[in-house]
């Protein structure tokens, strides 16, 4: 088929709206304004390695890693349960996982404040059991909860989509050869599900590391994560150079994870949510 030309509008669009913006970020991250015009600098990248910003990066990574771990621990068993169901029931169950994602995510996160705040619903329930009210909100735990809540489906769905593709005959063969269910899981299910796990980990970790809304709402704004840092540089501080440099660092992280994903994608066509 000779229909390549009909993708040209997209290619033009892509160059203007995907590539050019990324070059602009790169450009802003290494240039500064002087009276004689533009100069080249690596100062913004250097500044990122100051302890205060490395701490921000460290905290973002720590919270995102913990959230990703919790998502994996909660999500893997859930994906196994979903993959186990009778087909008819299964589609509905998978749909039930997707539906919450279509309620505005700011509102859902905000609803957690209603649930968790000091005179909120959870504390009222605890009050019925004569347990003194606790501060659930505005700490790291609340931020992690928000991340797990928002990104759990991104962990469950890729693992699920890999698990249902596993050939049932393999499991039966393992059983016939004397493997118990634990061995079957360790030797067959787990290794075969690794592409789904990797895809899930990427899809949870990347948004978790860069979110700026969840720490703002559930962390009460006292936790500056990398997303908040970028937002502040552009909207409040007006330091575009530094904001761009932090964005470039995030972009490099994303490219690395794309590379890892791409390696597995060759083996299984599509992969991930698609």
């Amino acid at each position: 088929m000779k229909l390549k030309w009909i993708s040209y509008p997209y290619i033009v669009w892509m160059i203007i709206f995907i590539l050019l913006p990324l070059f602009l970020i790169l450009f802003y991250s290494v240039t500064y304004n002087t009276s004689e015009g533009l100069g080249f600098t690596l100062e913004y990248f250097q500044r990122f390695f100051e302890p205060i910003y490395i701490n921000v990066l460290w905290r973002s990574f720590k919270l995102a890693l913990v959230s990703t771990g919790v998502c994996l621990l909660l999500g893997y068993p859930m994906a196994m349960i979903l993959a186990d169901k009778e087909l008819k029931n299964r589609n509905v169950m998978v749909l039930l996982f997707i539906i919450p994602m279509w309620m505005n995510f700011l509102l859902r996160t905000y609803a957690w404040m209603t649930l968790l705040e000091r005179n909120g619903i959870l504390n009222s329930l605890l009050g019925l059991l004569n347990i003194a009210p606790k501060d659930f909100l505005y700490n790291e735990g609340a931020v992690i909860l928000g991340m797990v809540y928002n990104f759990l489906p991104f962990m469950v769905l890729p693992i699920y989509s890999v698990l249902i593709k596993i050939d049932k005959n393999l499991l039966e063969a393992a059983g016939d050869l004397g493997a118990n269910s634990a061995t079957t899981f360790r030797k067959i299910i787990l290794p075969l599900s690794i592409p789904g796990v990797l895809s899930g980990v990427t899809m949870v970790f990347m948004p978790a590391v860069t979110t700026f809304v969840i720490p703002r709402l559930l962390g009460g704004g006292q936790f500056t994560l990398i997303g908040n840092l970028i937002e502040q540089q552009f909207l409040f501080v007006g330091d575009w150079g530094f904001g761009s440099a932090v964005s470039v660092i995030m972009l490099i992280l994303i490219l690395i994870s794309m590379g890892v994903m791409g390696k597995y994608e060759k083996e299984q066509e599509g992969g991930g949510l698609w």
Partner: protein
Amino acid sequence: MVKFIKRFYTSLIFLFLYAPILVLIIFSFNSSKSRGSWDGFTLNWYVEMFQDRQIMSALYVTLGIAVLSSIIATIIGTAAAIGIYNMNRFNKGIIMNLTYLPVLNADIVTGISLMLLLIFLKIPLGFTSLLLAHITFNIPYVILSVLPKLRQLNKHLYEAALDLGASPLYALRKIIIPEIKPGIITGLLLAFTLSIDDFVISFFTTGSGVANLSITIYSMARRGINPKINALSTIMFLSVLTLLIIVNKRMDNTEEGDN
């Protein structure tokens, strides 16, 4: 026993996922304005939201952007998918990697880079800039929905049409488009829902005076969210739910058709 544990675990996970949504829906019927207390049942918020100028303008912006951006993205994206499908392996690889970039990229980086572009091109921030941004992040999802359908397509059908004297465009219209239609519609609906739900990219690419619902909610969050927003979201949630059930039905049908 194992079955019970599975059921119990599933219920706990679904409770976790649905608790906030239930809270939102319940509080849209709360006659008290604060989210702290329950003062009785009312439908007032459902009436009053239609008189709230800020909320209605946000709704119009959200829907307008969602309709326009999803249609434009579907046209560009479908054409792109057909073209990409016909490329050689090398070009296909490059284009697909670039297509995955906005999907996997952090929203905040996409948002900021688009903001820099809009300022660089001197496009005023407002409805148009918001629309351009939404089209941009929607196109890859359309391509990713349409491409699998193209892979399932029987190549010989198109060639047969050409042999029988059809022009390439005629064959495209009569053979390819009808065959990949389910993918196109899935892509359109996906683009529409993504556009409605987007906050981060919109936040950086809109100008003063033009706010979609997400931006309005974010700016309200500090003062406390008005129950009118809960009422509106409940209605939208139920609409999207209906839409999603339709999509799911369609996908089930096409899957059955493929087998």
